[in-house]
């Protein structure tokens, strides 16, 4: 088949006419969207003190772990310290909970996306 043939066939596409209620349906959706209250913005103002406190705490922990060692800390010693801290704070459980949440959300989205 030559390009000319392809052009003729694909250019002569039949058009469909939108159903009579199409514009009305779109405008109904637009009006309902326009009358809906605007989405609640994230309260950045209120969250700033909390975020600043968390950041400060993180810095304090980092400084303590970084400078509080009596012996010269090599890579192995740092790793041991990190593991000890992880055990103390229950990082394993937190990681497991995060993983379970991720799987749950991914599965829900997949199921919801597949159904239409």
């Amino acid at each position, binding site marked *: 088949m030559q390009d000319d043939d392809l052009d003729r066939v694909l250019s002569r596409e039949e058009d469909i006419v939108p159903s009579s209620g199409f514009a009305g349906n779109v405008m109904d959706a637009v009006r309902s*969207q326009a009358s809906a209250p605007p989405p609640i913005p994230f309260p950045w103002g209120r969250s700033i003190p909390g975020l600043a406190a968390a950041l400060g705490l993180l810095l304090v922990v980092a400084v303590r772990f970084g400078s509080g060692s009596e012996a010269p800390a090599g890579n192995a010693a740092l790793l041991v310290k990190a593991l000890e801290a992880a055990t103390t704070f229950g990082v394993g459980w937190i990681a497991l909970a995060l993983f379970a949440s991720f799987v749950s959300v991914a599965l829900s989205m997949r199921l919801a996306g597949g159904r239409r």
Partner: protein
Amino acid sequence: MDDAGWSYPARSRVKASEDEADVEAVLAGEIEAFERIVRRWQGPLVNLAWRFCRDRARAEEMAQEAFLRAYRALNRWRKDAAFSTWLFALATNLYRTELRRIPAWTVPLGEAAEARDPRPIDGGLEDQDRASAVRSAMLALPSKYREVLILFYFHDMDVGATARSLNLPEGTVKARLSRGREILRRKLPHWLGAPHMKEA
């Protein structure tokens, strides 16, 4: 309003000033002005969606969503391009995403081509069969070629408009057009020797 026989490039030239006035009215709070935009562009947007999915109900659903998104994003149209160009790029992006999420029903490319003996029995039927085979084969193409071909023919074979709708460089559009056509020719070998179709 008569939507039959619309021509996208012609309409976009004629309606550009009306689009701009209506957009300004909507942004000033006159929601009803958006209805004029919807009535002006419902034909092209529904037809573009139809070419992507070949399902009338779904095409109207996708076009409605495109209009809603356009309404929400109206203040982001910067007027550096025609409103229609912006609208088509937005709709194309939405249709592509939708079709990737839930693909249109298509026959596999190998089965789409040459579904029956193409030897001429009747001129009209032959034309219909040929058109049907080509469209089926086009819908079964990998998405990057299919999208370019759909947009190219939708925009009356205007490479520039196709590139703007897909947000791709013109060179990429030309390369994909060429490759897409090549795949179609390879998949429709029996039509190669068939006599040319009659002019409409």
